[in-house]
């Protein structure tokens, strides 16, 4: 356990990996509803002069915003927590019907080591809900695979004009220690 604790204590590098990957993929707009798992990435996006960051009130706005961005020639990514996926379902139809790209980066709750039972229903339904709505889903559970997976997802989304979500497992993020 001591080793595991030590590993968690070191600052993870995967959020910086995601940011570099988004830059490599030519992402010009990033929209988000915050999640603790995305905190560092959101800071990086807000600090970047070439990324137009949009704070949302609800996640489906990010889906609509992505379509608008694409209509105007911008590639975009939407950051959210798994609970926000449920908010997106009907809006995802505009992506599929217009065959436009969508890149969703979803940090997971309601799974690995979850403490809050209220997170379980949406967390356990996230992947199925997305797939039922026509979104291609990649999942990543090893921090070393995050960047490569997101890069592959971005290429699939923007070169093949499809909705793609990357689910970043709670095992990558580390679960909230409620004893603190």
């Amino acid at each position, binding site marked *: 356990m001591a080793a595991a604790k030590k590993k968690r204590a070191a600052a993870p590098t995967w959020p910086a990996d995601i940011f570099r990957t988004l830059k490599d993929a030519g992402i*010009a*707009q990033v929209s988000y509803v915050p999640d603790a798992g995305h905190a560092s990435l959101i800071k990086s996006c807000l600090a970047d002069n070439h990324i*137009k960051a*949009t*704070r*949302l*009130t*609800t996640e*489906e*706005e990010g*889906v*609509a*915003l*992505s*379509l*608008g*961005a*694409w*209509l*105007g*020639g*911008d590639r*975009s990514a939407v950051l959210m927590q798994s609970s926000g996926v449920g908010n997106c379902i*009907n*809006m995802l*139809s*505009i992506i599929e*019907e*217009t*065959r*436009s790209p969508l890149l969703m980066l979803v940090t997971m709750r309601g799974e690995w080591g979850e403490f809050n039972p209220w997170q379980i229903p949406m967390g356990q339904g996230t992947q199925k809900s997305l797939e039922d709505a026509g979104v291609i889903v990649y999942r990543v559970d090893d921090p070393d695979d995050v960047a490569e997976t997101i890069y592959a997802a971005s290429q699939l989304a923007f070169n093949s004009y499809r909705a793609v979500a990357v689910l970043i497992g709670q095992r990558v993020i580390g679960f909230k220690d409620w004893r603190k």
Partner: protein
Amino acid sequence: MAAKKKITLNRRDVVSRIVRDRGDMLMVTGLGSTTWDAAAAGDHPNNFYLWGGMGGALVTGLGLARAQPDRRVIVLTGDGEMLMGIGGLATTAVAAPANLAICVIDNQHYGETGMQETHTGHGVDLPGMAAAAGFAETATVWNKTELEAAIPLLYDTKGPVFVAVKVNTDAVPMILPMRDGTAIRARFRESVLRDRAHD
């Protein structure tokens, strides 16, 4: 609440007047009556017609406005559609796109589902909500004179601009634009992005 004002403007006349000055403006229309209104006023490759995604029109316009900061973007939608995406007022006001205006064609009813009343006939003031969110300019239009005064707001005033035009519920002919979303998206991108449209 004050006595209700009489509503006389016809939605088709209003939309025809607005698009008369369109120039190179880009327009996003919301599900559903405003999509038909835009078609009735004259199909155009710079029109992006939403036939779904209720509540998404304003923020679709925001994404477009942020991608095309040198072009005027007007979102044309209905009161029911705007109410469904009401949080978009906050998102848009904070993003503060100078080139974005939204015009809500407000007949105070859900026109596509049997003319049930919306909140706007019961005291909900959409321009008031937009102003409270931080929109740069807001107006409510009740007549032709006020409509003329709102045209420069929609086209020339630093945004984000929110204009609600109160229109009557008189029946209008059903005029439908193209509805294949992929074709609408491709045509719009070809018009806006030219040789980058199929990157």
